[in-house]
């Protein structure tokens, strides 16, 4: 009897000790994680639910598990959504490649060719356009590159281009805008990766008679792979879905899936179509990123942002 009593007394205190040792991180994360679960992760799921509803804006929508919406979007649609998807992937892919080509030399310059005290200033300059509102800075490009804008009128005066030359409304303008708006997201992770490289490795490579090109291709480039990976992830994801650059810098022939989702939701109030498009986009990006991570992957991407 006494035995039982003592265990009964001891049990909660042990439990309490166990709880007090293990609970702090959970208590600390509660609000932050709760908010992200409730207002970020669950909404992503509710997008799928809304896409399976049928109805119309006037009568309202009901959940009918209408999976046909997904085949309708690709096959039996008056609106060429497949084209928008492919176009957006091409724009996002091109913008990402251009970002790597431009960002790598910049990050390399800051990491290796600049003395310690100037590095933060040069990084701030890379970020300078972020101090102007996204919509304003993109529209300023539209202003500069417009048919009556300063660039085209100058080119016409110099007789470098004909009367029918346009920049706005072309795929080039949209991709250019995407590159401009996302360049820093490529420079920063590559810079962080380059900054982590132990310079003795490069010295060792040189001591072993590697020439400049070999040092770069065999040591610097592989060691900065994690940075490129993180940059590609951030830039590709944000450019494929972006509706702003294609709306402000593009035209009728550059309509992207981002614009399609916005229009379906906000102008046509086809909630189910919009939710389906956004679910497809998310699944598509998830799949591409998964395959990409498998092929070029690095262990812990969380640490790179």
């Amino acid at each position: 009897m006494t035995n039982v009593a003592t265990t009964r007394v001891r049990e909660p205190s042990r439990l309490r000790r166990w709880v007090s040792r293990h609970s702090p991180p959970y208590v600390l994360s509660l609000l932050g994680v709760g908010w992200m679960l409730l207002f970020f992760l669950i909404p992503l799921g509710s997008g799928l639910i809304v896409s399976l509803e049928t109805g119309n804006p006037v009568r309202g929508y009901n959940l009918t598990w209408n999976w046909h919406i997904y085949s309708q979007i690709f096959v039996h649609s008056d609106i060429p959504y497949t084209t928008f998807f492919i176009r957006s992937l091409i724009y996002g892919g091109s913008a990402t490649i251009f970002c790597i080509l431009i960002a790598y030399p910049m990050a390399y310059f800051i990491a290796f060719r600049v003395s310690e005290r100037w590095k933060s200033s040069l990084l701030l300059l890379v970020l300078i356009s972020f101090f102007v509102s996204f919509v304003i800075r993109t529209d300023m490009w539209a202003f500069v590159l417009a048919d009556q804008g300063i660039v085209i009128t100058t080119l016409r005066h110099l007789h470098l281009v004909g009367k029918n030359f346009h920049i706005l409304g072309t795929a080039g303008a949209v991709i250019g805008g995407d590159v401009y708006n996302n360049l820093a997201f490529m420079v920063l992770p590559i810079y962080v990766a380059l900054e982590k490289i132990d310079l003795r490795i490069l010295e060792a490579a040189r001591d072993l008679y590697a020439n400049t090109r070999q040092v770069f291709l065999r040591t610097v480039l592989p060691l900065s792979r994690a940075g490129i990976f993180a940059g590609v992830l951030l830039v590709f994801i944000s450019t494929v879905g972006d509706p702003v650059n294609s709306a402000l810098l593009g035209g009728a022939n550059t309509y992207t899936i981002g614009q399609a989702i916005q229009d379906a939701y906000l102008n046509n109030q086809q909630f189910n179509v919009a939710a389906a498009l956004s679910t497809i986009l998310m699944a598509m990006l998830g799949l591409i990123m998964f395959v990409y991570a498998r092929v070029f992957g690095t262990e812990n991407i969380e640490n790179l942002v």
Partner: protein
Amino acid sequence: MATGARHEPRDRRSPWLAIFYWLVIVVTSVPILVMVIYSFNNAPTSRITFAWNGFTTYWYRNLGQVSGLTHAFLVSIEVAVISSLISVIIGTPLSMALGRYKFWGMGSINALVFADIAAPAIVVGAASLSFFLSINLNTGLLTILIAHVAFNVAYVVVVVRARLSGMDRSIEDAARDLGANPFVTFYRITLPLLWPALLAAFLLALAMSIDDYVITSFIAGSTVTFPLFVYGAAKVGLPPQVLCFGTLIFFVGLTLALANGFLNRRHLAVRAATEDSLTK
């Protein structure tokens, strides 16, 4: 690693990298220059024009003239300040958990934070609207605040966690050894050391919130924020006052960033000096 100049061992240095860097910086500065310059253009109409009609401060003196613009700007400031405060308040404990403990579920939380930052805005916006429709919450100021906190928490975590991982834990341990309970330790030791990171996180959240167009466009209802106003106006031509607001935001933001960088540097210098004197 040496703290001095960190140069790649290489004898010949071509200037092309430097030229390339500065060329890109010049190109990315074009929209900023155009914005600042044209905010002073004496345009004959209340839309920005390509022709330069002389210098004026008229638009700055009549900032409030455009109906809706000032209100949208104030809404944006309000949303930014409140959502950033909430984000820092709930994001800081989360960063402490991730930076100071090893616990079951930590990997999933890290992945959640990463997904929150990497997720495409268009999908997050559309999904948030789906969610608010599903729970019958009318879109407006409240939903904007909720959504802004949802993406800003992740940015706060990234900034604060980075600072925590670089922080010397021995001071906290010493406080605990001297009998301080966890709350006193946090309030007297961790918080003062973390202050610059909290400020940086707050400023970053502020910037992300003021700048967000895509997510807000879905869940704003009839509320108009500054980016929503600018986007709507962009289709018919911007009023010059938009450029004035843009210029003001630019210089205020730059000043805050520089001040924060300066504070950080001083903070680091003070800490280095303290550690130096302690080791002697």
